[in-house]
């Protein structure tokens, strides 16, 4: 029965010891420890949150960059396309111009040739006329005895003309 009969002395000591323990440990251990642990947990949570935020910002930044890059690429493509167009235009214009010029030159040449030709023809005409007159003169001048001699003469004269 001694086993289950409380002893007042021990009971009193236990109460005193527990009160002292609770009082001193609360003041000098539990409160500082709990506070420090809570503070650390908070700071860890904060750090995690800010890391998450930074990650998000980074992702945003990356997306922005990507967008800008895309834009730049599009612009470049546009510029290239324009340049291509301009080149084409220039080439087309130049070709046109050249064509026109060559045509004009040809036209001019043709006109020149025509006029030269006319001149030449006129000259030839006048020469032929002259030669004809000369031949006729010669023919008239020489009293032709026979027909053979006449023919010979004509041929000779024609040869002369040819040689001319």
């Amino acid at each position: 029965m001694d086993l289950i009969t409380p002893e007042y002395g021990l009971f009193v000591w236990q109460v005193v010891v527990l009160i002292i323990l609770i009082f001193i440990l609360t003041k000098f251990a539990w409160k500082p420890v709990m506070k420090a642990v809570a503070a650390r947990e908070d700071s860890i949570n904060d750090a995690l949150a800010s890391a998450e935020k930074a990650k998000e910002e980074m992702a945003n930044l990356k997306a922005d960059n990507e967008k800008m890059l895309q834009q730049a690429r599009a612009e470049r493509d546009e510029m290239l396309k324009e340049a291509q167009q301009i080149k084409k235009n220039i080439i087309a214009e130049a070709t046109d111009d050249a064509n026109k010029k060559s045509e004009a030159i040809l036209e001019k040449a043709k006109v020149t040739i025509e006029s030269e030709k006319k001149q030449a023809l006129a000259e030839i005409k006048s020469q032929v006329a002259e030669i004809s007159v000369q031949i006729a003169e010669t023919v008239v001048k020489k009293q032709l005895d026979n027909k053979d001699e006449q023919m010979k003469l004509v041929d000779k004269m024609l040869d002369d003309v040819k040689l001319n």
Partner: protein
Amino acid sequence: MATHKSFKITVALMLVFFLSPILGIADNKTEDTTEESFNPTEMIMHHISDSHGWHFFGEGEDSFTIPLPVILWTDDGITTFMSSAFHHDVEGEHIVERNGQKFVNYHEKIYLLNEGEDELKFDEETHAALNADRPFDLSITKNVASMLLTVLVMFIFFLGLAKHYRKSKFAPKGFKNILETLVIFVRDEIAKPQIGEKKYMKFMPFLLTVFFFIWITNLLGLLPGAANVTGNISVTVALGLFTLALILVNGNRDYWQHVFWMPGIPTFVKPILAIVEILGVFIKPIALMIRLFANITAGHIIILSLIGLIFILENAGVAAISVPFALFITVLELLVAFLQAFIFTMLSALFIGMAVQEHEHH
């Protein structure tokens, strides 16, 4: 390396633990065989009961016992002397005289003999002392000394832990980290789930103190020659009363309404339930105190019984079986030491949680 070393120390302590009762009982036996045979009940009761000196081994005048202060509060004031003054006598034969008062130690209970008497007499029927009274005994007994040792250990542990945070905001390393983990364990696994996020902070000091006090005391109780503090009913009564006091002081309106006039049931049942609930308020802490007391005492009794078998059967060969068994039980007791601290704290938190809970009105 550190773990290896501490393992070695643990093994060494365990060996000493097993050897000390054997040696102690062996001495007991060699002296006793001439007079009486080995009495296991007496041996076990001696080991699990409180005493005025801290006995390690040996018998009578040859024994190795640390004397502890005896503090008695009599009608004439406080009288103090060392327990060694009784010269290891627990049969009430050796009289210690201080300030004209005669004291005897009968089975670790100190009696103040009435004036003129010089021998303790008992009533045959009731076993009540006829010519002596028990003064209020505030002695530093073995249990009180052991308790103070726990206090010392807790101060070293936790004031050291608190000191760490004054220097650094980072988590401590090594043993302090274990302590911090345990503190967080009490907070996150015991206080928060049982009491709730809002109110747990107020009860953390009590829960932490009780948890570590019970656990460390349990563990110290497993050391060789150690006291059986948490297996003493006076100690567990005090612990249980703390929980009861916290419930009574912090119980809110809802709680008392549920105790005295349970809402939501037919009126004629309410008085019956009130009786049950009022009983429940007291049975809860009583269950706490009995659970802790019985579990720890039972563990000690089992270990001592297994060792005692060797001497009951008077055969050293029995040791081959009973020592491994006792070792197994001791390892189990290491688990029980934690488990009982956890259960006591957990249930205290649960009961406090019930008392402070905000009920949703139906």
